[in-house]
Each structure stands twice: as C-alpha cells, then as structure tokens.
C-alpha cells in the first residue's frame, strides 16, 4: 500500500511517499515557497543519489500538490506509474483541540472540527487544512487521515492541563494546556519499551524531545500524564528562540517598558528569546557550543547551562509527579546528537539511581542505551520519525 504523507506549512509542504507496511520511503521532498517568488519542488527518490529541484510558479497549496502528484507519476522524477497506486493520504495536523485524542479518518465532521481548532493554532491549522482541501479535490476517492500533534497529550488529567486562571476562560475559549510533539513522544516511548522488552502499559517514562523546539513528556502506563508545552509551544523548556516558562508578570512589565504591541511581544517571546536571546550568538546549539568552548563566550556558556538546567528540572518534576521513573529518553536533533548537552542534563542524577555507561555516551543518532545494566532508570537515545508514525497510523486506519 502506498501512502503519501503531507506536512503543510504556510508556504511549504513537506512530503514522503511510503510503501507500507514495508516502511519503505519511495520518495521525499518539499514544495517550497508557495505563492512566493522562487518557488520549486525538491524531490529525492530512494534510488536517487541527490535531490532533484524543479522550478516554476506555485500559486497555492492545491497547485503545489497537483504538480507534486504529476512529478510522482513522471518518467523523469517519478516512482509510481499511476496516481491510482496511491492508496491513502496522511496529514500532520498541529492542533486537534479537545476533539481528538488519536489519529482519525478525515470525514466532513472531522474537517469541521479542525477548522474550529484553527482559532487555537491560527498559524498552523489553516495551512494543514489547505493540504486536506487540495487532496479532496485532486484525489477525491482516496481516504485521508489526520494525525494530531496534540492528540497524545489528551490523556493529561484536568489538574495538569488547567491553568490557574478564572475557570470561565477555559469554558469560553478552551484556554488550557494541550502540549505538542505528541506523535514523537508516543513513537519514542513505545519504541523504548520494545527495545528494553518492557510493558508499555506498566512503565513510567520521561521523554525529552530536544530540537529547536523542545518539550518533555511524562508518560505513565502508556498515557501522556504531563508535558512541558502548553496552550502554545512557547511554554516549558528554553528553546532555540522561544522563552519557555516565564513569569507572565515579566512579560507585562516588558510590554509596558518597551511599548510593544501584542504582535511584537509575540515575536519577542517566540523569535528573539531562548538560546538566541540569552547567548546573543545563535539559536543553533552547535554554534553556541563553539562560542562557549572555543571563544570562551560567557553568555553562550550561561545559555547552555540554562538549557540543561531547565530540562533537568522538568525531569525531576515529572519523576515526582509520577512517583518515580523507569525510562528516560532523549530524541530530536539535540537529544539524538548533542553529546555534551545530554551529559550536562544527565549529571547529578545519581539520587534517582541513574548509572551511565561511559562507553556509550558518545553515541549519536541511533538507538542506544546510555545507562548501565544495573542502572535503576534506563536512559536511551531513540531517533524520532514523525513521518513514519503518520504513515503507520494512516495504514492502520484506512480500510484495506
């Protein structure tokens, strides 16, 4: 069964064509700069040594997807002979509000609910919907599935997801914590149990998805119990350019002093802050580490300490919240590859019974058990693969 996975952003579409259940990627790439000058489609088949780039005007998502389908069946760059070979479409949908606690077939009512949830994710859901509408027009007889970033965290209990604000604001606008990166946390936590041969439904897991956007999740007996991101992805860890947790009073003070509008304050907390804001160097961990180690940049050092400290704090908090932890997972670009940051986070955890296997600490980008056999808590690196999860969910849901 061939399944196409779409991750539609405001001006780009990431795609992968899977052969399921073989989990084989036949082609992947990007429709870039939709509605802008310089638009192009980049595509690489599993048989290609390098990426192909085809330029041309792409006015909207539908046109971009149409060209993409045309390319997939073309002799020059394609890997299927007919569009009828595509059996299903899987969409990444950022916000499912309180409506969706799992992936679903996209019916009329489901699409309506995603439209309604756009209010909570005005930057993300509308482009996701454009991809859905486009596929409805272009391949009307093929089932589509929505996989939500928020769905996995819908199991959080009320006392965890509510904010300490007047309850009426939750009732009126659904202001609450939703959490994101759900597909990734779900995938790596299950995978870790497979690797360790432990029962998912009886295990306490803390999963650290550390990338430019970063979040920690507490997964208790197979269900998300808490996660660090909130109503928006700005809450929680210090990220590449996002503040993470901050006293809302401090924001009011800054807005008053700097005379910033809501829009500018939003840019301030999401694009100017985090590792970039503190270090003044970059939002990229590698550049910050270079500045700290090779140039002795003090602010870069502080930023690295802050990053590791905040992750450590969440791990401690979630261990307390779940009355213990069995598995600690690192994933995402930083979690999988940044040996130093991992080491900083993992320092001084002996009180929890973590024992690290020094011979494994340098491993990057592959499934690795970082802890010793005797370690009370197993520490693992599990590379994430969100596209594959979307493909698997889609495969499971579409009628065979």
């Amino acid at each position, binding site marked *: 069964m061939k399944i196409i996975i779409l991750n539609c952003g405001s001006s780009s579409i990431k795609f992968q064509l899977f052969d399921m259940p073989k989990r084989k990627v036949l082609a992947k790439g990007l429709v870039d700069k939709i509605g802008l000058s310089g638009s192009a489609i980049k595509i690489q088949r599993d048989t290609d040594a390098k990426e192909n780039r085809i330029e041309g005007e792409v006015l909207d998502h539908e046109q971009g997807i149409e060209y993409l389908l045309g390319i997939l069946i073309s002799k020059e760059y394609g890997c299927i002979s007919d569009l009828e070979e595509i059996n299903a479409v899987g969409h990444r949908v950022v916000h499912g509000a309180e409506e969706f606690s799992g992936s679903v077939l996209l019916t009329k009512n489901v699409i309506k609910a995603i439209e309604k949830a756009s209010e909570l994710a005005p930057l993300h859901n509308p482009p996701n919907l454009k991809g859905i509408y486009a596929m409805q027009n272009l391949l009307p007889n093929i089932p589509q599935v929505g996989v939500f970033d928020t769905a996995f965290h819908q199991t959080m209990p009320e006392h965890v997801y509510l904010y300490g604000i007047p309850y009426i604001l939750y009732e009126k606008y659904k202001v609450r914590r939703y959490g994101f990166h759900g597909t990734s946390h779900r995938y790596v936590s299950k995978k870790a149990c497979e690797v360790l041969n432990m029962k998912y439904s009886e295990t306490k897991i803390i999963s650290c998805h550390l990338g430019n956007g970063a979040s920690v999740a507490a997964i208790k007996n197979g269900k998300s119990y808490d996660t660090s991101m909130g109503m928006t992805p700005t809450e929680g860890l210090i990220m590449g350019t996002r503040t993470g947790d901050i006293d809302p009073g401090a924001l009011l003070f800054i807005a008053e002093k700097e005379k910033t509008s809501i829009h500018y304050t939003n840019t301030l907390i999401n694009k*100017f802050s985090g590792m970039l804001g503190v270090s003044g160097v970059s939002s990229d961990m590698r550049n910050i580490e270079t500045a700290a180690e090779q140039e002795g940049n003090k602010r870069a050092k502080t930023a690295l300490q802050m990053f590791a400290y905040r992750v450590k704090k969440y791990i401690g908090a979630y261990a307390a919240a779940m009355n213990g932890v069995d598995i600690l997972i690192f994933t995402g670009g930083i979690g999988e590859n940044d040996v130093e940051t991992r080491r900083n986070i993992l320092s001084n955890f002996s009180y929890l019974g973590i024992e690290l296997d020094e011979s494994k600490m340098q491993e990057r980008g592959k499934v690795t058990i970082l802890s010793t056999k005797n370690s009370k808590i197993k520490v693992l690196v599990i590379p994430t693969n969100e596209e594959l999860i979307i493909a698997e969910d889609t495969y499971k849901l579409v009628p065979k």
Partner: protein
Amino acid sequence: MSDLAEFSLGKSIKPKGSVQTLGIIGCGSVGQVITRVVAQYGMDVIFLDVSNERIKEIFEEINQQLDNVIKHWGITHSEKKLILSHIKGTTHIEDLKDCDMVIETISSRQKGTLLSLRQELFQEVESVVSKDTIISSDLSTLIISDLARGLKHPKRAIGIHFIEPIDKTNIVEVVKGRDTSDDTYEKVVRFVKTINKKPILINESPGNISTRMLIPLINEACEILMEGVASVPDIDETMKETTGYIYGPFEIADKIGLDKILKYMDNLYQEYGDKKYKASPIIKRLVRANYLGRQTKKGFYNYEQEGKPIGNTISCAIIK
C-alpha cells in the same frame, strides 16, 4: 531544466492571478512603508524613483525603518535580510514590465500637477506592462476614473488607499472606479488579504471614508485651539482617550504632513463645497512657515530625534 507547469494534471484551479511582483512609483514615506510591508509577506517589490542617488537614500531609509522595527522586537535580523532581498530600485519605468500590479505613490505635495501628472504616468505605465497588470494609485481625494481616463484598458485601474500609520492599520480602502472590472477588484482584494489587511470596498468618492472623516476632525481641533479652549496636547490626549485612536488629530496631521492635509482640504472643499472641509487658517499658516509636521521636524509639535514630540509649537492667548 523542466518547469513545474509541465507536470500539471490539469486538475487544480488554474492560476488565479496573484500579485507576486509589485511596482511602486515614487518611493517617498508612503511608498517606503508599502514596499517593506509587501516585501515582508514574500512578494517582490520594484520601486521607481528619480535618480540612483535617491534610490540609495531610499534603501538607507528602509534599512533604518527595519532596524527600528527590530529594535522594538517586531522582526528578526534574518527576516530583515529576507525583506531587503525582495526589494529592488530602478530609475527606468521599463523595469516595471513584469509587475502584476503597479501602485503610484508620488507626492501629493507638488502644486497643480496632481491629476495631469498621474494621468500621464498611468499611460506611461500601461505602455510598458502586460495587458493583465493592474494600475493603481494610493489616492485619497482624487478620483480613480479621472486618472484612468487616458488608459486603453481602464478596467485595470483601481484605487488603493493605505491609511496612516500604514504598518499598524489593519484596513486598506480599495476604490472601484466607473470602469474597474470585477477581476481587477478581486485580484486586489486577494493582494490586500495576503498582506494581512482587510479590504474595505469604496465606490469612488473624494476622500473615501478615512480622509473624509479625518479632515473635519482636524479642522474642528484647529477651531478648538483657536478659540483657546484647550492646548494641542490636551486636545490630542482627549481624543485618544475618548475614542481609542492611536493618534490625536494634531499628531496624525503632523504624521501625514500638513502640506498634504492642506491639499486634501482644498480638494474636498472644491468637491463638496462644504465649510467643514475648508482649510483652517492655522494649517495654512503652518504650511507657509514650512512647519509641515514630522518631515520638517516642526508642525503642531516640535520633533527632536526619532520623531518624538518634545512640545507643542502653537499656543494661544488663553492657553499658555
């Protein structure tokens, strides 16, 4: 190299004609803000101005404005780079040939040249652009049908009025002339929505909504001042507090430019003959003294650096 269009399945709705390249003619203060707002949304902008020196100055001015936005956390440095990469300047009108839409924003300050100059310009633009290009004017008291009179295809002419402060105001007045086609109107509506503003449909009438409402307000504020009822800052503050306006009448007059305001007043008075549009003697006096507002650092207020008012210039016998 292949072009994407070769891979069309003929299924999706064909190109609906979005504006991807915008031409700006006369890149003064208004043209500059339109240029950077449009470039910020990923469209290419080519502005036409009088000389290479002026083009260099314009880039410096836009650069400065963007730095100021960065200083207030509005955009990041890399976003600034991206915005600037979308902007080009030229002194040759032929360079506008590939534009999907051209907006003239030439100064309203030149005496007696308003209509004829713009009419000629419209025709000149029409001679270089494609048949589908929209030709537009950022007009407030002029009539788009008058400007389009000499065009071979007047259906492509439309008015588009960006309202001060352009980067903060959420609406744009889209003015349909007698001959403006629905296609032209819809294309402009899509353009306005793309830059995250709401189009307000106007059936052509001098002053549209915004200027027609603003001019009597400024005149009345001048009356209050002349009668010695209250001072410039107090009148402004009262209006801001009671209506929620971002600027008071004197502040906005200084920002738009008192010479421009005077021109609007004359045009509206000539059109409607109603006293409420007749230029206040205070405005006339200030313009004669070259107190034109922020642009000359003196208007109703004194402006020191960074355009911040440091005090009012006018006081009357009663209000000290």
